């Protein structure tokens, strides 16, 4: 195959993948088959590696495939599989259209990049994914689509629905739209702004300075089989390759390529007027390494070993991130086992938030503390977790929410009901209400006689913590009934057995 065409192939593949990944986060109608989601997310390296910690599966194979692919052909992950990479390419293309861009060779800030990697590991060992929550590219992209593109889609759908309805056509259904605006404004948008700015001004600098995936794959790519190599015999020293290299990794003056930083975009192959660049095994032609094991790297490796050694030598208990002690702390979604598992496995991609039909799952900001920045939480103010729904449990790409069966879900206790009698309408206004009991799927809340009225009575042993009572409770702002999160999800007891209806036969006679 002609090497020049590799760029085209990369562009095509990356755009298709970007479209599919965007659709995952943009699918308010839930039309995408689950296997599409599984197949696509399995190849997202860090979510899949994280998920592999809770069990081996398709995702493990996906992560292994990515590492193997990088070992063979370099960081094509960064140029085709990574949605944030493609997003940056689009920003770069836009910037280029405004003002033609000339890149220049610039060694990336490796120390910073290694530091990110080491700190990611240290935080992970301490029970927090804080750096992935901040910097993992698939998750950043997911948050962007959820926070910006999805509301636009919903708003335009609703505008269409409204217009059609006013003409008497009810063919388009309006969609619900609630989002934690604070989390979006303070979390998603600043991160997005930073990445867009970096892409606009410095090309793929994010990938070679802050991205933890870039750091890992860069190390693998150092020893990859195929690399971009400048052939001194045919190179005309025109420097075009360097000018189109958005990773700034080609030093055309010294005819060297830093393939640790190379994201395999193949722009250089396309730009080269001769065949001065080849994509080959180093050594098969006269290829030189740009970083012949420089002392800086040795220092880094030594430092890493020391830090890791120190971390591992510690008794792990003391390293578990201080749990958020504020009560009530947020409820975590079904299948997440509890706060500890959830916060130590969630990369904050917000795919669960995107697929949640009631939007009870909401983007978070610091709901689980800094250690769990951006991680979503259950918000029972305006919605509740449907008794018959396990959608999010099948969607999580990082294993923070584990797949569970519907039967398991129906007995899963996410939290326990708490009733503030003195706040209840029945007491304060002396009228019947019953909204809480009405919505309770297990009758953990039921109405019992109270003077001439009926007052809620709770049984938190059979409560599943779905939040239906809390959502339905009309007292404001303090709900008279709410769910207190369990640190570790429990098992709700079977509701007490009731006799089947005795007189269940057809009516024999009208009682009037």
């Amino acid at each position, binding site marked *: 195959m002609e090497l020049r065409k590799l760029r085209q192939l990369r562009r095509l593949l990356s755009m298709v993948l970007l479209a599919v990944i965007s659709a995952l986060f943009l699918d308010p109608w839930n039309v995408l088959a689950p296997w599409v989601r599984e197949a696509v997310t399995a190849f997202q390296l860090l979510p899949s590696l994280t998920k592999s910690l809770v069990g081996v599966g398709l995702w493990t194979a996906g992560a292994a495939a990515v590492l193997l692919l990088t070992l063979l052909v370099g960081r094509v992950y960064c140029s085709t599989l990574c949605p944030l990479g493609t997003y940056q390419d689009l920003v770069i293309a836009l910037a280029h259209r405004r003002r033609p861009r000339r890149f220049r060779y610039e060694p990336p800030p490796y120390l910073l990049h290694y530091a990110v990697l080491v700190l990611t590991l240290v935080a992970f060992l301490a029970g927090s994914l804080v750096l992935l929550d901040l910097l993992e590219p698939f998750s950043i992209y997911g948050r962007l689509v959820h926070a910006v593109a999805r509301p636009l889609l919903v708003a335009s759908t*609703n505008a269409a*629905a*409204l217009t059609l*309805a006013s003409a008497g056509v*009810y063919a388009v*259904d*309006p969609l*619900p739209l609630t989002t934690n605006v604070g989390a979006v404004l303070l979390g998603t948008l600043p991160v997005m702004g930073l990445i867009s700015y970096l892409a606009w001004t410095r090309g793929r600098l994010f990938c070679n300075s802050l991205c933890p995936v870039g750091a890992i794959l860069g190390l693998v790519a150092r020893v990859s089989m195929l690399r971009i190599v400048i052939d001194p015999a045919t190179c005309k020293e025109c420097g075009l390759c360097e000018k189109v290299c958005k990773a700034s990794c080609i030093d055309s003056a010294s005819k060297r390529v830093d393939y640790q930083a190379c994201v395999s975009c193949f722009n250089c192959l396309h730009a080269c007027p001769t065949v001065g660049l080849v994509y080959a095994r180093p050594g098969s032609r006269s290829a030189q390494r740009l970083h012949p094991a420089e002392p800086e790297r040795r220092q880094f490796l030594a430092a890493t070993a020391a830090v890791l050694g120190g971390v591992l030598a510690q008794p792990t208990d003391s390293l578990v991130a201080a749990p958020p002690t504020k009560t009530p702390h947020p409820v975590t979604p079904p299948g997440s086992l509890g706060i500890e598992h959830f916060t130590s496995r969630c990369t904050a991609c917000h795919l669960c938030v995107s697929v949640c*039909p*009631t939007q009870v799952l909401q983007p978070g900001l610091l709901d689980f503390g800094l250690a769990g920045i951006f991680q979503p939480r259950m918000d029972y103010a305006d919605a509740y977790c*449907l*008794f*018959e*729904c396990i959608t999010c449990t099948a969607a999580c790409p990082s294993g923070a929410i584990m797949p569970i069966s519907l039967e398991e879900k129906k007995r899963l206790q996410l939290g326990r009901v708490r009733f503030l009698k003195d706040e209840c*309408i029945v007491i304060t*206004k002396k*009228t*019947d*209400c*019953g*909204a809480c*009991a*009405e*919505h*309770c*799927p*297990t*009758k953990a809340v*039921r*109405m019992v006689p109270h003077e001439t009225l*009926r007052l809620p009575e709770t049984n938190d042993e059979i409560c599943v913590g779905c939040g239906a009572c809390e959502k*339905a409770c*009309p*007292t404001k702002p303090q709900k008279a009934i709410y769910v207190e999160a369990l640190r570790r999800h429990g098992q709700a007891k079977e*509701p007490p057995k*009731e*006799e*089947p*209806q005795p*007189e*269940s*036969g*057809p*009516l024999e006679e*009208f*009682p*009037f």
Partner: protein
Amino acid sequence: MDRRDFVRRMVGVSMAAGMAPLLGTPVPLLGREDEPPIDLVAIRGGEPDMMFDRGIEALGGLQVFVGRGSTVVVKPNIGWDVPPERAGNSNPRLVARIVERCFDAGASKVYVFDHTCDDWKRCYRRSGIEEAASRAGATVVSGDSKSYYHEVDVPGGRSLRSAMEHELVLESDVLINVPILKSHGGARLTIAMKNLMGVVWDRGFWHSNDLHQCIADFAAYRKPTLNVVDAYYVMKRNGPRGVSEGDVATLKAQLISTDIVAVDTAATKLFGMEPSAVRYIPLAADRGVGRMDLEKLQIKRIAV
């Protein structure tokens, strides 16, 4: 219909008319002047769809209520993500039959919706109502968006003075209220008047401002053209959502009336409760919305 069909049908009709008195179930082919009008029809022992046919026949057919070219809203209870045998939602066969009969009567458009409690799409699907009503030709519409609801005054309301009401109810010619009879934690029972809570948006206000009074106030404002109470499967406890099929009794009954208070009173008795114990019923009766004195009403009782 060709001529042969017509003749055959006429023969059938005249035979039925002739035989009917012998069977003890007079079929009112033509409203007889000397007979007082029927206030309420109670049917038992049949399937939901067929009981409706028998009942509405006793009232002179649905064309009495649904004019040619009219637009109709059929408002079932579709509140919960539970299957029909759990009795959380109105019976899908009953809803479909009513839709069919609306079209038979010449309706130009029949809409079906509810402002559900659980996720609306799941409720519509699981209840079987979306499929059954669509197949019968109805336009099944979402009740899940505030944009469909418009502020209306509730004149004379004691607790409820205004409400956000679904535009289809505001714009359509006919409203057929199709509740299911169920136990209810807050309101004691949910029947026809309580079912109208599903055409408004802000239910929280009702719950926090004397639920019973709000139900009665709204019933005084919005009077359905017809109320068809589904009492085929009846949730006797743990309502309105229910916990299991153990909550359900198979009563195989149905009530039809234009009087929403009368139909709720009769349904309460069917359930085995005193109508005065369901406070919104006497409240509505006191406001003159309808009548609780069943003994003074013309009730047509049909055993299938």
